[in-house]
């Protein structure tokens, strides 16, 4: 599988599962500061496996990988109560977490993006909007905002990371059912 095919598969099939994956990891790992690293490790394992053979469907494979990773980590720590592991083993049902409903994604997409942009810190948001909407270069944004280019770079980098977290890690807030 070529790198670009792997990227396309990852973006289309794996990233949309990130909110579920994060929920799963938070539910089964005590230290919140380690969640992002765990997610990264899950993605590495998933993509390395996909290079050999694409798992289809992706969801049970991604969540199964998360489960195995957590079991590995717990075993390595060697301080974990047996019942914790047993508990995790019972979590095969994790594959039944609700997935994103693709038919509503397009409709909610714009609202989601709007909310994500609105929630960026003000200066960060300003830089991102000037870049995305006005199509300005780094230098032009710096002039417009009256700050150095290095500061603009910080804002943009932060905005990129924050947007990815909001768009992928968080479950969609809009729930139409009462």
């Amino acid at each position: 599988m070529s790198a670009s095919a792997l990227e396309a598969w990852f973006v289309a099939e794996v990233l949309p599962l990130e909110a579920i994956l994060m929920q799963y990891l938070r539910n089964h790992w005590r230290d919140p500061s380690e969640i992002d690293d765990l997610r990264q490790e899950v993605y590495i394992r998933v993509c390395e496996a996909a290079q050999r053979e694409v798992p289809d469907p992706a969801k049970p494979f991604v969540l199964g990988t998360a489960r195995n990773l957590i079991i590995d980590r717990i075993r390595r720590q060697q301080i974990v109560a047996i019942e914790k592991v047993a508990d995790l083993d019972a979590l095969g049902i994790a594959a039944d977490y609700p997935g994103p409903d693709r038919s509503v994604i397009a409709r909610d997409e714009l609202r989601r993006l709007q909310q994500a942009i609105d929630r960026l810190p003000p200066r960060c948001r300003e830089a991102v909007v000037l870049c995305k909407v006005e199509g300005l270069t780094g230098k032009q944004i710096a002039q417009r905002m009256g700050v150095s280019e290095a500061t603009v770079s910080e804002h943009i980098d932060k905005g990129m990371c924050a947007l990815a977290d909001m768009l992928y890690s968080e479950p969609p807030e809009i729930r139409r059912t009462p």
Partner: protein
Amino acid sequence: MSSPETTSADINAEAAAWLRRRHLETWTAENESALQTWLDQAMAHRIAYWRLKAAWERADRLAALRREKTATPNSSAALRIAKFAAAALVLAVAGAGAYRSLTPRSPSAALYATAVGEHKTIRLTDGSQIELNTDTKIRFASAPGRQTVTLLKGEAYFQIKHTPSRLFVIEANGHRITDIGTTFRVRREDARLEVALLDGEIRFDSADTRVKPVTMKPGDIIIATAHSAAVMQTPERDLKDQLGWRSGMIVFKHTTLREAAAEFNRYNTHKILIADAAAAKLTINGTFQTGDVAAFTDAAHAVFALRITTRNGQTVISH
């Protein structure tokens, strides 16, 4: 695998810096190869980069809609023409097989053409080169002291090494462009000819001798018809966008869906049809691969909630 002491936060920060530099700074082939090296170092690098890039590109759709709401009415007819002309597509030239080397035998002439969706580079022995965009045809003739390219149809990008002992002349529709060492783009569409100068200097002589010759400066665009020639200045960034086809991309800026569909249709045999007038007037911003019709229709669906159907081998976009 990433080294254990590298946290996902560090990798994320590096990926963001790459992505930002790629979007906001001048991006050279060296930058691109440095990025590739970094991506190839670890799966973790690739994943972090893909993830940020996917989110960042999703945000483009929001920009498209905001543009629609806040579009500045600066689209004079002429500017719109220039913008429209800007888009182009192409499969990047794949491998040496796509290149042809010309030996200027004199006097001799050769025809070079591209099919719809094709992109071809012609290298001259003096280091000059000519890139043909989709559905383009030129005739190249070389004689001592003079090389002549006739643009029979389509669009081409010229990078000409100036040789004092030899003139380089482009002819189209009876108009004549004489190079004075330069980089420029010429597009012919029926009776209309468009010339954009990026670098150096060229002289434009209209087919109609009553139209005064124009010496063009970088950033100038000339739109010429049989009996007229209008010159306008365009920001460098827009000129670069207009050459997106050289790397297989189409760039839209406040482009209506009708114009965008027409641009895609230049590059693809599978055509897009905008089936209603209201939808045709919506405007979008964005960068697409010239052959990726699906990305365009997905965006139309996601941003404007338009319906995408396939009918008689055409993709039909409607409300």
